[in-house]
């Protein structure tokens, strides 16, 4: 099979030797069915062993190979060369500090994910003797799309609000909060509210919608945030009219 010669222009940053990131070009003989990740691995294996990037599954499941390819954040394992020109620019995700080459620091994102309590907070243990919670297809459908997130951070890379305000919880974390809020087994909406309904939560979002456009798993974080805004507005006015109702709504006694 004949190889197609591609120029990969990769943003390099080696903190021990560079004060700021610089581009480096590689000429890579590529096979027709390759994705950008294959081309990067070719560089790593044959041209420059110092190039650093994250990847694991090579099948759009692990979410670790997110990077900016010709100005669009995407999974490099899903970016087929047949859809791209002969000159491809590869950069780390935007809005995150670069650790080395194409790897960005995940710390802030991980903290945000944790802050929305992304786990089931049931009101009481299930009465079912086999320990399971029953759920209908309709109940599953309500949250399933929002459960497809693979934490690739592409949505944070394009979110102008996250770029402007580091405190903003961001699209994926808020979509994940909604995924649990919308789950019939969960009762933790009020417990997540302190983060979700704060000025650095859903209310920081101005509905630009770029997150939903770039999401490789079609999660639609923008829709999740809008739905949460409706629910939080209803809660806000309910609390205003019936201030005492709020105490009862903290079912799991969470004090954080």
């Amino acid at each position, binding site marked *: 099979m004949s190889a197609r010669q591609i120029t990969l222009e990769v943003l390099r940053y080696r903190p021990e030797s560079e004060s700021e990131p610089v581009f480096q070009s590689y000429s890579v003989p590529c096979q027709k069915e390759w994705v950008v990740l294959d081309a990067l691995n070719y560089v790593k294996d044959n041209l420059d062993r110092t190039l650093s990037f994250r990847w694991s599954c090579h099948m759009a499941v692990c979410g670790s190979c997110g990077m900016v390819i010709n100005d669009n954040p995407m999974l490099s394992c899903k970016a087929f060369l047949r859809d791209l020109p002969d000159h491809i620019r590869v950069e780390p995700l935007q809005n995150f500090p670069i650790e080395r080459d194409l790897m960005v620091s995940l710390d802030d994102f991980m903290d945000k994910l944790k802050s929305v309590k992304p786990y089931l907070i049931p009101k009481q243990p299930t009465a079912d003797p086999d320990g399971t919670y029953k759920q209908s297809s309709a109940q599953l459908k309500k949250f399933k799309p929002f459960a497809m997130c693979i934490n690739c951070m592409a949505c944070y890379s394009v979110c*102008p609000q996250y770029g*402007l305000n580091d405190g903003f919880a961001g699209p994926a974390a808020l979509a994940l909060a909604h995924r649990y809020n919308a789950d019939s087994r969960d009762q933790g909406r009020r417990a997540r*509210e*302190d*983060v979700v*309904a*704060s*000025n*650095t*939560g859903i*209310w920081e979002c*101005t*509905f*630009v919608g770029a997150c939903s456009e770039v999401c490789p798993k079609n999660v639609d974080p923008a829709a999740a945030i809008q739905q949460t*805004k*409706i629910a*939080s*507005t209803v809660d*806000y*006015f309910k609390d205003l009219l019936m201030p005492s109702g709020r105490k009862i709504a903290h079912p799991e006694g969470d004090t954080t």
Partner: protein
Amino acid sequence: MARSHKPVVWGLFAAGGTASAFLVPVLAITLGFAVPLGLLSPTDLSFDRVYSIVSHPLGRLVLFGYMTVCFWHAAHRTRTTAHDVGLHNDRVTMIVCYGAAGLSTVLAALFLLSL
């Protein structure tokens, strides 16, 4: 972390967006197409007829509600757009946008009362 008070303005913003989404197409079709194309007779939208609808207490109430939510929708959208384009003095933007919406609401009420 303190809960935000944005639901107040966002509620009005959302109501304005929803109301406009339903009513603007109706207005556009009626005034932009139905009347010029002769699908409605000119007398259907005669001044006297429209005036009698608008000055009826129910008409005034509906108009007041619709205008108010539209003002606040525009104000909130302008505030968030100002933020998106780089005007980050939110306090000033808020005062200008919501001030304009508040003033417009009062003027609308006065106008409708004077009909």
